[in-house]
């Protein structure tokens, strides 16, 4: 009964369009004021202690690192590298767009920024070469979301924060699914391009490739700094994130020289406000999950599930559907912070691997960003391509189907996500 009241209140408040963090906080306050005698002072304490963990501080550092390198110049370098490597295959620039999106998204960490950065450069070039506009739009919209699966990923840190799973293991677990999905999107592109005989590029010389590689490597090394540092045990994830931020600063200002030193303050300010927004959601989500736990809602749900005889198979199906629906209206961080603390205990009771469950959630988030009617990537893509949402919905269809197929594989074949971390993190 209480659970129903909490959820209805939360949903009603959210639907008014107020910030998600505020609706979470108000739900908790209303509930505590009217229905329980939990001391209200504990709320104030929670609002400070909710984010008083060093692990959470990886988020601002990753955002800062990403923002230093979220620049048109970096996008251009990634595109040049990708075209020189695979531009001569079927799909040409389109295929290169998939690869460039994957690389840029991994570094910048922001899906909408990837869509804009790669899209604004490569889409006009594709149209010029005679690709239909919707082909490029479909590629960029879907591939732009790859960033949250390829580490370093903020969505994974969020999952780790709300469930206590190791960030390092999650990052390593994301590698194989991330690359597989990029390849699958590439194959979809290749196949459509081959069928329609879209233009290809002449094969680049090894010299050209080397130049392009040398230009893009500085950005890509960011991933190496993070993954290498965490895997070798030299850094904790938060330290790795801070080192990545310093590295990104050096590359952006002194190596690439994209960022004049006087713009650094602006990058700092933007990153700080983006991080503050996420930290504010985390604080309020912590408050909300504190309420959930004190009302024993995950517990009751788990028992009910087991009593109904639901196995992992049905549970995961329900989780997928739930997350895809949520992905329609909310951005990934909020969904993970609200849903994970509720679903995770149930998953554990059913014997699902925490890392597998995390990757599954992240893949869902990725699809949520680009599926109609309200994926954020669709909106951003609609802005740069001047195509309507309905038109784009049709355009993303082939890639979206690929992603959904991949989701089924991720859901029902756990080794895809758990094999690498189990081998490496023993």
């Amino acid at each position, binding site marked *: 009964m209480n659970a129903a009241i909490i959820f209805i209140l939360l949903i009603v408040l*959210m639907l*008014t*369009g*107020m*910030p*998600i963090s*505020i609706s979470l*906080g108000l739900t908790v*306050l209303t509930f505590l004021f009217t229905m329980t005698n939990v001391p209200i*002072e504990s709320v*104030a304490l929670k*609002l400070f202690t909710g*984010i*008083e963990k*060093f692990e959470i*501080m990886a988020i*601002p550092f990753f955002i*800062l690192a990403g923002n230093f390198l*979220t*620049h*048109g*110049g970096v996008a*251009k370098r990634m595109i040049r590298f990708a*075209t020189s490597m695979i*531009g001569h295959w079927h799909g*040409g*620039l389109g295929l290169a767009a998939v690869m460039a999106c994957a690389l840029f998204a991994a570094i910048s960490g*922001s899906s*909408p*920024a990837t869509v804009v*950065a790669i899209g*604004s*450069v*490569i889409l*006009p*070039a594709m149209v*010029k*070469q*005679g690709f239909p506009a919707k082909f490029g739009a479909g590629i960029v919209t879907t591939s732009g979301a790859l960033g949250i699966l390829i580490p370093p990923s903020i969505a994974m840190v969020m999952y780790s924060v709300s469930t206590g799973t190791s960030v390092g293991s999650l990052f390593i677990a994301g590698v194989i699914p991330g690359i597989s999905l990029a390849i699958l999107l590439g194959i979809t592109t290749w196949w459509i391009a081959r069928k329609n005989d879209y*233009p*290809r*590029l*002449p*094969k*680049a010389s090894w010299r050209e490739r080397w130049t392009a590689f040398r230009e893009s490597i500085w950005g890509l090394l960011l991933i190496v700094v993070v993954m290498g540092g965490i895997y070798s045990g030299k*850094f904790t994830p*938060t*330290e790795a994130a*801070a080192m990545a931020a310093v590295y990104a600063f050096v590359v952006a200002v002194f190596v690439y020289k994209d*960022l004049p030193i006087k*713009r650094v303050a602006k990058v*700092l*300010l933007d*990153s*700080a*406000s983006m*991080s*503050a927004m996420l*930290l504010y959601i985390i604080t309020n989500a912590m408050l909300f999950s504190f309420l959930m736990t004190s009302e024993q809602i995950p517990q009751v749900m788990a028992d009910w599930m087991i009593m109904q005889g639901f196995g992992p198979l049905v549970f995961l199906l329900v989780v997928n559907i739930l997350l895809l629906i949520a992905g329609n209206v909310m951005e990934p961080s909020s969904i993970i912070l609200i849903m994970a603390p509720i679903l995770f205990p149930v998953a554990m009771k059913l014997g699902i691997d925490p890392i597998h469950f995390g990757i599954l959630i992240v893949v869902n988030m990725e699809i949520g960003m680009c599926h109609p009617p*309200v994926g954020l990537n669709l909106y951003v893509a609609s802005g740069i391509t001047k195509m309507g949402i309905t038109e784009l919905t049709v355009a993303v269809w082939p890639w979206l189907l690929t992603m959904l197929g991949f989701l089924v594989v991720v859901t029902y074949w756990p080794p895809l996500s758990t094999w690498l971390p189990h081998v490496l993190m023993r």
Partner: protein
Amino acid sequence: MINRFLNHLEEWIIATLMASATVVIFLAVLHRFLSGVPYIQDYAVKLHVSWAQELCIFMFVWMAKFGAAYGVRTGIHVGVDVILRKLTGKSKTALVLFGLLAGATFTGIVGTLGSNFVWEMSHTDQTSSDLELPMWIAYLCLPLGSFLMSFRFLQVAVNFYKTGKLPHHDHGHVEGLEDVYANDLVAETPSIAGARK
């Protein structure tokens, strides 16, 4: 005038905290590595940086509280807008105002709770574990940040009522795209310039 000063102070505080926290952790990691290098380590071990983590946490918590207030002013806090998109005219105005006032109320309540909490804390001699900073000072960001945020919500609400405009944050904004056009990509990359078909 006061408002302009407050805006600058807010921006200055959060950007500085962001930068300093990064530098602090960078130095702490550097220190750890230097402690393993012969000769240098003799000097390095004399310095203690065990407080670095705690300092970083405090800086980011302060940044989060003030940054959240700044975020209200720039419209970065996202909500579920499926219904708002469908509405027009008076009902839309009413719903937006309701959301903003709810924000002001919530942050106002939290600010009040926070002040009480800090007040009680200041009568104890609790300090943080590494920095030995009195805890009430660390917690001070809670009332300060929350009241500032409440004020920002009211400001945005008044402004919206008067002009019908809401601050909007563009999540897809990327620097450095003005000068990048398809043309120079094609011109600079020989392999694209000579594309067949």
